[in-house]
C-alpha cells in the first residue's frame, strides 16, 4: 500500500505553483505556456468581437459628421505618427548615415495579427493569433496605426502574448513633442528640448515619469495633449520618434516637491485593439 495520499500530491502541486510564481524566473516557465496559450481563441475571439461591437453600438457618443470619422481619424492619426516618426528618423540619419534603407513607413516591416483577448489577470497584455509559424518571436516590437503597443513577451505554435507599454514595470525612454503651424501654414512636428525621460508603465493604460524636475517641466512648456515619442537606444532606430501617447496629467510629487509626476496615456485603449502589427523585420 502506498503512503502517498491525494493531499500529499495536492500540497506538492501547491508548493510547485508557489515556487513557479515567486521564485523561478519567467524565462524558464514562459516557453512552455507559450505553446498552448492560444487554445482559448475559438471562444475568446468571437466574444471579444461581440463585446467590441456592443461597445461601439451602445456606448459610443453619436457624431453629427456625415463622413466616417473612424476612417478619417485613423488616417489622420497614422499620418501624424508617420510624420513624427520620419522627422525623427531624418534627424537620426543626419548623425548616422548608415541604415538608410530603413527609412520610410515601418508598416512595411510589419505583419498584422488579430488580437484574440486581453489579460484575464488584470495585467496590461494582449493575446494574439500570431504564432511562431508566422515568424513571431519574443522581443519583437508591436505597433498600431496610433503608435506603439508593446513587445512580444512569449510566442508559440498556437498564439502569442504581447506585453503592453502600459503594463506595470514596462520601461522606455521618450521625448516630448507637439505639432505647430508655421507661418506658411504648414504643420511641423517639433520635439521639445528635454533629455530622454524614463517612463514606466503603471497598469490601467497609463505610463508615468517621476524623474523630471518641476523646473525642467515648466521651462519646456509641456502641456496636456503633447505627444510622447520614443527615444530609446534599446529599440530599433526606425522606431525612433514613434508615438507612445499623449500627456494626460501632471502633478507635483507630494514627497519631493522639486519633482513632478507626468502621466501619459496612449491615444486609444490598447486593450481594446482588434488588430496589431508585429515588426518582424528591422
Amino acid at each position, binding site marked *: 500500500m502506498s503512503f502517498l495520499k*491525494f493531499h500529499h500530491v*495536492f500540497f506538492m502541486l501547491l508548493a510547485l505553483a508557489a515556487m513557479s510564481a*515567486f521564485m523561478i524566473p519567467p524565462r524558464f516557465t514562459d516557453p512552455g505556456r507559450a505553446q498552448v496559450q492560444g487554445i482559448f481563441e475559438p471562444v*475568446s*475571439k468571437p466574444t471579444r468581437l461581440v463585446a467590441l461591437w456592443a461597445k461601439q453600438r451602445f456606448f459610443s457618443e453619436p457624431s453629427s459628421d456625415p463622413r466616417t470619422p473612424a476612417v478619417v481619424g485613423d488616417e489622420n492619426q497614422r499620418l501624424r505618427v508617420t510624420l513624427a516618426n520620419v522627422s525623427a528618423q531624418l534627424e537620426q540619419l543626419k548623425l548616422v548615415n548608415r541604415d538608410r534603407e530603413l527609412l520610410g513607413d515601418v508598416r512595411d516591416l510589419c505583419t498584422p495579427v488579430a488580437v484574440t*483577448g486581453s*489579460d*484575464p489577470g488584470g495585467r496590461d497584455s494582449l493575446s494574439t493569433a500570431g504564432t511562431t509559424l508566422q515568424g513571431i518571436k519574443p522581443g519583437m516590437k508591436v505597433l498600431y496605426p496610433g503608435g506603439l503597443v508593446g513587445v512580444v513577451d512569449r510566442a508559440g505554435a498556437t498564439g502569442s*502574448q504581447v506585453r503592453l507599454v502600459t503594463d506595470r514595470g514596462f520601461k522606455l525612454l521618450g521625448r516630448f513633442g507637439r505639432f505647430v503651424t508655421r507661418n506658411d501654414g504648414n504643420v511641423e512636428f517639433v520635439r521639445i528640448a528635454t533629455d530622454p525621460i524614463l517612463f514606466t508603465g503603471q497598469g490601467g493604460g497609463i505610463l508615468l515619469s517621476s524623474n523630471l524636475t518641476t523646473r525642467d517641466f515648466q521651462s519646456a512648456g509641456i502641456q496636456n495633449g503633447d505627444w510622447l515619442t520614443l527615444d530609446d537606444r534599446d529599440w530599433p532606430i526606425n522606431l525612433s520618434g514613434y508615438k507612445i501617447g499623449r500627456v494626460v496629467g501632471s502633478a507635483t510629487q507630494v514627497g519631493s516637491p522639486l519633482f513632478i509626476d507626468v502621466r501619459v496615456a496612449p491615444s486609444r485603449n490598447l486593450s481594446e485593439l482588434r488588430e496589431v502589427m508585429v515588426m518582424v523585420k528591422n
Partner: protein
Amino acid sequence: MRWLSYFILAYVALGLQTGLASFVQYQGATPNLVLLVGVFIALNAPRDAALLGCFSLGAMQDLVTQHPLGLFALAYGLIGMFVLSTQEIVYREHPLTHFSLGLAGGLMTGAVVGLHGLIHPDQHVPPLMLFTSALLTAVIAPFVLGPLQKLKWMFKFQPKRQRPRAF
C-alpha cells in the same frame, strides 16, 4: 465528477474572461468569472476532485495572463481548500452564499497577487484595484453561480449509490 463537463465549462469561462476582460471593467478592475467556476466546483464536488479542479482552473488561467506561471493555480488551490471547508455548513443555493464566497475568493486571490507584488515591486498591483475586482466578482456571483447550480446535474458531482440488493 464528470471531467468532460468540467473542462468544457473551464474552457468557456476562460474564453469569456479573456474576451471580455477589457470591456467589462471598472477603474481597471474586472470581475473574475474563472474564480466563480472554481467556487462552483469546490462547493459541489467531492474533496479530491474539487481541489484538483480548482488548481487546474488556476493553471489554465496562468496560460493566458502576464502574471508568472503558478500564481493563479496557487490562489485557486487555496480557495478550493477554503470553500471545501465550508461545503457542509453553507446553503449552496442561496445568493448570499454565492456573494460571500465570491467575495472571499476574490480577496484571497487579491492577497496572493498582492503578496507577489510585494516580493516583485515592479509588478505591484494597487490594493484598491484588487479589492474592487473582488467586489465586482462578488456582485456577479449570484448571477453566475445561481444558474450553474441549476446545471450541476451535468457534472455528476455525487457518485451513484449502489442499490441494496433485494433478497
